[in-house]
């Protein structure tokens, strides 16, 4: 066992290996590792961002839904009051119509009654005259009492 040229050969080989590792292995591996580290960090950040965005979206959706609910309630209230109004209006109109119809029927009836009364009056006068004629046929000169009879008929 002696120290000899093997030592220098070994030093050369060693130096070459270290140079190779320094040049072609270490930086490449380290770069890949750092890049992956960066990617993982980015991924985590993106996930965090996504989660917060999701939360914001959920909050927004909730507010939109509640606004819509309020609006719907509002619309429903308006519709209800409108419907009540329409029904009320219809009832008023109906009442009015009914009153008008009743009034016109009443008027017609009055007219008919008056006409019947006039007719009746004429007929009663005629019957009265006829009766009186029959009673007074012998005593009353028709011509002499015409004026009296006509006055009587007018008074009936």
């Amino acid at each position, binding site marked *: 066992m002696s120290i*000899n040229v093997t030592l*220098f050969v070994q*030093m050369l*080989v060693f130096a070459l290996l270290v140079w*190779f*590792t320094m040049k072609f*292995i*270490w930086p490449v*591996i380290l770069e890949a590792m750092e890049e992956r580290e960066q990617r993982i960090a980015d991924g985590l950040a993106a996930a965090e961002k996504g989660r917060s965005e999701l939360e914001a979206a959920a909050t927004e959706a909730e507010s939109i839904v509640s606004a819509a609910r309020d609006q719907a309630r509002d619309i429903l209230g308006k519709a209800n009051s409108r419907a009540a109004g329409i029904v009320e209006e219809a009832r008023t109109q109906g009442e009015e119509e009914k009153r008008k119809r009743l009034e016109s029927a009443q008027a017609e009836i009055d007219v008919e009654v008056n006409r019947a009364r006039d007719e009746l009056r004429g007929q009663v006068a005629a019957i009265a005259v006829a009766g009186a004629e029959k009673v007074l046929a012998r005593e009353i000169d028709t011509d002499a009492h015409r004026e009296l009879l006509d006055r009587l008929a007018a008074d009936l």
Partner: protein
Amino acid sequence: MEDAHEGPANATEYIVHHLTNLHVGEGFWNLHLDSVFYAVVLGILFAASFRFAAARATAGVPGRWQNFVEMMVEFVDTQVRDSFHGTSRLIAPLALTIFCWIFLMNFMDLVPVDLLPEVGVAMGIEYMKVVPTTDLNITFGMSITVFLLMIFYSIKIKGAGGFARELLFHPFGKWMMPFNFLLKLVEELAKPVSLALRLFGNLYAGELIFILIALFTLSAGGHTLTETLLNLASPATISYLVIQVILGLAWALFHILIITLQAFIFMMLTIVYLSMAHEEH
């Protein structure tokens, strides 16, 4: 095939054979081919497999291999961040290379001691030490490189003057200059030496124990693994084989801890030493 290979005559020869490097050249120019071969192959294995993950690295869902590589990178990165407070693009990749490469080289210790050498013998290779970290040249090669980096960063951060001041005026002021320098020299030199020797010692001892465990069947059976297997009929051989398997298993399980720990210690101390080199006093 076996004819070309003369098995060891006794235990000593077997052990010595296992501890001998395949080499070319003499004296200083002696090159341990097996150490360099396995170190380079394992280094390429590390670099290629990690580069494979890096090339297909995606910031999306990672595959299993990419996941593992990222785990290693993150582990090393955490250690570097905890211990090293300067900014350097070199330290972390250096630490990763040290940990993975040393672990792989140590891991060769868990390959059965005779397996690869026997294959080598079959291919006509006489000697083969398969664990590069049981070679002082390999461990010193790494620790000296780290030492040079320590000096480089000391000068780079503190300037040549600052570094010289640190060497000469600490810890006892300028009147004790030679003593300071001597103290500092020992302190600094102890770093690469202890780094290299700790790793080498642990792995060498571990390898030696595997070799000793392997001696059980060797002493009972033939001179080589092949011969031993042919001798299996003998009851003594079978009992030795059982003992060897149990001991080998126990030591291997324990050794998993050691090889990981040694790779980790080398890495951590490198980070700490380089961190100290960056600090101003």
